[in-house]
């Protein structure tokens, strides 16, 4: 009986109820999308392994490290494996085709990254071909590349055309693995740099090491940095997670703004929903007074109003959550080069639901207070 009353009242003014449902849905959808974008920013951080450390030049990432450091680092206690990678910054055909591309140590690089699944024969083929490259599955799909295809990158940091042959296509072990990257041989890069007599020859961007015990990360990092103190290129060793966080923190202000906007959207819809509920209850104050007259107490009346608000916000929240999935698919088509991993997380879905619940609670709070405290006689309008 009370449920009937609740549902019929919730959709008594169909257009107003549907518009409020739509408003909540749009707000929850926007909230979910923005949170997913923020999560995407942190995708590198969440994909970081606990047993990997990154060694970079202590001055800045733009300063390289001598390749000669490699053997010295390998000898440090606790280092199980080492490889290196160098940001290449190449462009494929047009600047708008941006994707991350790195010069790496070849096959050993993939030993350090088991999350990149590369078939053995492709790995061998890549190892054998000095001009070979390995691309992510999503990247290959994006440009229609197949094994054996010849492609060329135009260098921005390292000038010139860099022809390559696709020798491998890796896939991600987990959903948060970026499949939009290209890796090619550092030897190929270094040979041309050396031939041109460039200062950056025999240098790499960063070293990546695998440590035997993740708990010893601080000690190993300290040993490595101590080994190169007072050298021409001092090092800064940190966990892969901290290294990735360094990139994210560069855009912290933008992330903060996005988070703020997402909460503002929820705040705005709270005000809109509260206004709708206040109007709806004010129009029916007489009916609530009749219910009070019949003996309905604060709990039942509050439950009725909260229930109405919850029905509208639950419908809007569900619609918004369901709508987030296709909206993300559409968004991903346009921003896959910037956000290679754009998946809504369970945490975001829970936050979506909590946001809808918060809207329902806030929207119901004011009318409940009014209905519970208004004297019956005043609400019935019959004094004298």
């Amino acid at each position, binding site marked *: 009986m009370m449920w009937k009353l609740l549902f019929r009242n919730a959709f008594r003014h169909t257009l107003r109820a549907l518009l409020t449902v739509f408003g909540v849905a749009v707000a929850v959808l926007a909230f979910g999308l923005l949170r997913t974008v923020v999560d995407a920013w942190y995708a590198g951080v969440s994909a970081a392994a606990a047993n990997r450390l990154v060694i970079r030049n202590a001055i800045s990432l733009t300063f390289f490290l001598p390749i000669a450091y490699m053997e010295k680092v390998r000898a440090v206690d606790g280092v199980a494996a080492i490889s290196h990678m160098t940001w290449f910054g190449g462009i494929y055909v047009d600047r708008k085709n941006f994707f991350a591309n790195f010069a790496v140590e070849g096959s050993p690089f993939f030993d350090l990254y088991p999350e990149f699944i590369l078939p053995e024969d492709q790995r061998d083929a890549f190892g054998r071909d000095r001009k070979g490259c390995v691309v992510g599955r999503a990247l290959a799909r994006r440009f229609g590349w197949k094994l054996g295809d010849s492609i060329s990158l135009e260098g921005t940091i390292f000038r010139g055309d860099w022809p390559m042959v696709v020798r491998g296509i890796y896939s991600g072990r987990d959903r948060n693995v970026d499949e939009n990257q290209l890796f090619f041989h550092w030897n190929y890069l270094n040979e041309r740099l050396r031939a041109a007599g460039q200062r950056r020859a025999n240098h790499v961007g960063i070293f990546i090491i695998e440590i035997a015990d993740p708990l010893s990360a601080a000690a190993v990092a300290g040993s490595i940095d101590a080994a190169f103190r007072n050298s021409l290129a001092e090092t800064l060793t940190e966990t892969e997670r901290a290294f990735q966080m360094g990139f994210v923190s560069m855009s912290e202000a933008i992330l903060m703004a996005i988070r703020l906007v997402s909460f503002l959207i929820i705040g705005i819809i709270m005000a809109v929903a509260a206004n709708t509920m206040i109007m709806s209850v004010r129009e029916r104050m007489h009916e609530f007074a009749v219910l*009070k007259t019949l003996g309905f107490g604060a709990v039942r009346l509050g439950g009725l109003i909260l229930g109405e608000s919850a029905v509208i916000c639950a419908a809007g929240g569900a619609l918004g959550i369901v709508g987030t999935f296709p909206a993300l698919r559409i968004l991903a088509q346009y921003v896959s080069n910037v956000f290679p991993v754009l998946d809504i997380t369970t945490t975001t879905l829970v936050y979506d639901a909590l946001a809808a619940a918060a809207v329902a609670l806030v929207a119901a709070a004011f009318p409940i207070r009014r209905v519970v405290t208004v004297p019956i006689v005043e609400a019935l309008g019959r004094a004298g």
Partner: protein
Amino acid sequence: MMSAAALVDIRHISKSYRRGNQIIPVLEDLSLTIAETEFLALMGPSGSGKSTLLNLIAGLDRADAGTITVGGVEISALSEVDLAAWRAAHVGFIFQFYNLIPVLTAFENVELPLVLTDLSRRQRREHVRTALRLVNLEDRMDHTPRQLSGGQQQRVAIARALVSDPTLLVADEPTGDLDRASAEDVLVLMEQLSRELGKTVIMVTHDPRAARRASVIKHLDKGVLANDVEAAVP
């Protein structure tokens, strides 16, 4: 002391309302007893305090001073929560404009007060059918208020007032919004409730014809009761 036959005992109540900075006295040192099964008509000009008195007896409002005892319970001393429970158990309300819930059917409107009881769904349905049969509206139970005439709506309201078998029925201008024939039907029904079911009925009315159906008529003027008038019961 309250007599054995008295259901309502009002002692020295006063009530005033505040309008801005002004305090407007409505009832002044009013005392009154209403016997069980009595059909009392409260008459008086607008602003005389008759609706205020009805509100106080029904536990919808509180007096500034004095006591009101109904069926041995001093309702003026009850908390808001206890007063709501007391109203649900002991008072049936009939309003001038019926005050039915428009989104519920006649059946559901009558069922509303029973939601607050421990009755099972089946028992509730039986009670509702009985109440609707009593007001001769069993065939309209699935109609919403909008699909009923004024007279029918008021009969649904009476069924709602009756369904929980309250001790006291209070009616504020129950025929004020009805045509003559419908008003007559409603009054006959209220008279039957008093006579045949032994309900104590208190009715506020402007209409002398309606008041004549009551067993006792009392006049209020400026918050003070005039001499009792024994109604000419047909």
